C-alpha cells in the first residue's frame, strides 16, 4: 500500500472517530473566535437541543416510532432539578442523575402501554402525555410556581468553578452534547442499532430475526427520555429559571421537526436540525411572530418531498444518483 492509500484506508476505517475529534476541536476553539455572549447563548441553546434531538432521533429516526411528547421529559428534567436543588436544597449533580432515573421510570410507565400502539395512535398518546405534564406544571403552583415560573435555580459548579457565564457554559453544555453524540453514534454502529433499523424497516421481519421489537422500542423510548431529562436539568441550571412555556406541545413538535429537518436516523443531522431551527428565527424576523406556522410549513414540505428528512434525503438522492451513474458506466 502506498502512503496515500494507507491514509485513505485509515480515514475510511476511523471516519466516525475523526469526525467527532474534528468537531470537538472546532468547539474547543469556537469561543476564541466568537466571544459575543449573545451568539454563545444561541449556540449553548443549540447544544441543549442537540442532546434532546440525538436521543429523539434514535427513537423516531432509527426505531421508526413517533413521539410528540418529548418536551414533557425535558420539562420533568428541568423542574425535577429545580425542585430538588431549590425546594429540597439537594446538591445539583446528584439531583440531575437522580431526576434522570425518575424520568426513566416515568418513561417506562408511559412507554409500556403506549408503545403497543403505533403511528397516529402513538403520536396522540405521547401528545396527551405532554399535555398532562404541562397542565401539572401550570396548575400545581405550590410546587412548580405555576405560570409565572420557577426562579432562583443555582448554576452548576465543579469544585469552586461555577458555570455562570456563556463561555463556561459553552464548554459544559457542548461536553454533554458531544457525549450524547458519541453514545448515539456507538449505539447505531452496533448490533443493537441494526436491530432498531430492522424494527423501523419491518416489524415482522425484525421479529423473525430474533429482535424483541416491543422491548427494543421501550428501551429506546426510555433512553431518549433520559437524554431529554439531562438536557432539561442543564437547561434549568443554565438559565436559573424555568417556566411551563418551554415545555408545551409546541416545544415537542419543534423537537420532532428538528429530527425531520436533520434527517431520520442521521445522528449528525440532529446537530444540523437543532442548529437550523434555533437559528432561523434569528436570521429572519418574520419567524418571530409566525414561528409555529412556519415550522409546520417546513414539516409538511419536507415530509412531502423528502420523507427521509432534509439532510438524509438530500444525501441519499445524491448517493443514489452516483451509484446509478457508476452502474451505467460499468454497463457501457
Amino acid at each position, binding site marked *: 500500500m502506498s502512503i496515500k492509500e494507507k491514509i485513505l484506508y485509515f480515514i475510511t476505517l476511523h471516519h466516525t472517530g475523526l469526525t467527532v475529534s474534528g468537531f470537538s476541536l472546532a468547539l474547543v476553539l469556537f469561543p476564541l473566535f466568537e466571544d459575543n455572549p449573545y451568539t454563545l447563548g444561541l449556540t449553548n441553546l443549540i447544544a441543549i437541543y442537540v442532546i434532546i434531538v440525538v436521543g429523539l432521533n434514535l427513537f423516531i429516526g432509527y426505531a421508526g416510532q413517533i413521539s410528540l411528547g418529548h418536551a414533557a421529559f425535558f420539562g420533568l428534567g428541568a423542574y425535577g432539578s429545580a425542585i430538588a436543588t431549590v425546594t429540597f436544597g439537594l446538591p445539583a449533580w446528584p439531583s440531575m442523575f437522580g431526576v434522570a432515573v425518575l424520568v426513566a421510570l416515568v418513561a417506562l410507565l408511559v412507554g409500556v402501554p403506549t408503545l403497543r400502539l403505533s403511528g397516529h395512535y402513538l403520536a396522540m398518546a405521547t401528545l396527551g402525555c405532554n399535555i398532562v405534564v404541562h397542565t401539572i406544571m401550570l396548575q400545581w403552583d405550590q410546587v412548580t410556581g405555576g405560570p409565572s415560573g420557577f426562579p432562583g435555580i443555582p448554576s452548576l459548579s465543579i469544585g469552586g468553578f461555577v458555570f455562570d457565564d456563556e463561555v463556561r457554559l459553552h464548554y459544559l453544555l457542548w461536553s454533554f452534547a458531544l457525549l450524547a453524540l458519541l453514545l448515539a453514534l456507538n449505539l447505531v454502529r452496533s*448490533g443493537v442499532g441494526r436491530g432498531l433499523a430492522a424494527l423501523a424497516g419491518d416489524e415482522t421481519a425484525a421479529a423473525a430475526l430474533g429482535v424483541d421489537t416491543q422491548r427494543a422500542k421501550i428501551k429506546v423510548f426510555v433512553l431518549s427520555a433520559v437524554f431529554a431529562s439531562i438536557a432539561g436539568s442543564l437547561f434549568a441550571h443554565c438559565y436559573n429559571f424555568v417556566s411551563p412555556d418551554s415545555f408545551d406541545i409546541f416545544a415537542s413538535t419543534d423537537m420532532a421537526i428538528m429530527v425531520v429537518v436533520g434527517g431520520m436516523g442521521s445522528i449528525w443531522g440532529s446537530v444540523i436540525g437543532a442548529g437550523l431551527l434555533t437559528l432561523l428565527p434569528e436570521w429572519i424576523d418574520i419567524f418571530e411572530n409566525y414561528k409555529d406556522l412556519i415550522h409546520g410549513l417546513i414539516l409538511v414540505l419536507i415530509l412531502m418531498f423528502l420523507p427521509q428528512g432534509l439532510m438524509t434525503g438530500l444525501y441519499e438522492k445524491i448517493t443514489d444518483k452516483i451509484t446509478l451513474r457508476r452502474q451505467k458506466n460499468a454497463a457501457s
Partner: protein
Amino acid sequence: MLHLEEVGKRFGGLPALDQVSFSVPRGQVTALIGPNGAGKSTLINCITGVLHPTTGSIRFLDRQLTGQAAYAIARLGIARTFQNLKLFPRLSVLDNVLTGLSCEAGHSLTMAMLRLPYLRHRERQLKLRALEVLDRFDLADKSRLPVGTLAYGDKKRVELARACVAEPELILLDEPVAGLNAEETASVGEQLKQLRSAGQTLLLVEHDMELVMGIADQVVVLDSGCCIARGTPAEVRNNPLVLEAYLGQMEATA
C-alpha cells in the same frame, strides 16, 4: 426436528388450516406444496409465531412453539425468508445480512453505547461471517450498496443469505424463486442444493415443481387447509388425490 400435530387455524369462521400434521426430519429438505390459497403461508406464519394456531401443537427440538412470540422462536434457531421480500432497503447489503445475526450481536443498549473492546471484537467477527456468506452467494462485490438499488434476483439472494448467516437449525423458505427468471431460478436451486449437502434442514414452500421435485426429500401437499398427501416426490407425483387437486390443474392449463 419440527413436529406439527393437528394444527388448525381459523380466521373468524373460515378454516385456513385444518388438522395438519407432519414432521420435518433433521438434515432433510421438506417441501410444502399446494394450490394458491391452500394455507401454505398461513402454516409458515404459524410456525414462526407471526400467527398463532387456533388448535394443535407445534414442537421444535422438544420445545413447544405454540404461543411463543416470533422473536423467541427465531432465537431458538428458526430462520425464514418471506414471500414478498422483507429486506431493509436503506441499509447496505452487508448490514442487511448482519441483521440476520441480531441474536448474537447482544441486546444491551448500555454496552452498545459504551462500545467496549469486546463488543468491537465481536462486531468484527460478525462482519467477517457476513462477508463469508455474501461471498458464497456471489454478492461480495455488492456488499456496500443499499439493498434498494439491487435487482430483484439479487434481493432474493440477499434475503437467503440473511437467513443462512446465523447457521440456524431450520430455515423456512417461502417461495424463494417466485418472480425469478429461469437462469436465476437455476442459481437459487444450486444454492439450495449446496445447503442441503451441507446438512441444512429446510422447509420449502414453492410453486416451481421442477425445483421441488429436484431437491425435496419429502413432499407435503396441502389443499384447502388440509394435508392431503405426504411422501417422496415420486410417491406424491403419482398420488391421484394430488393429481386432481394440484398437478391436475397444471396439466389442464398446460
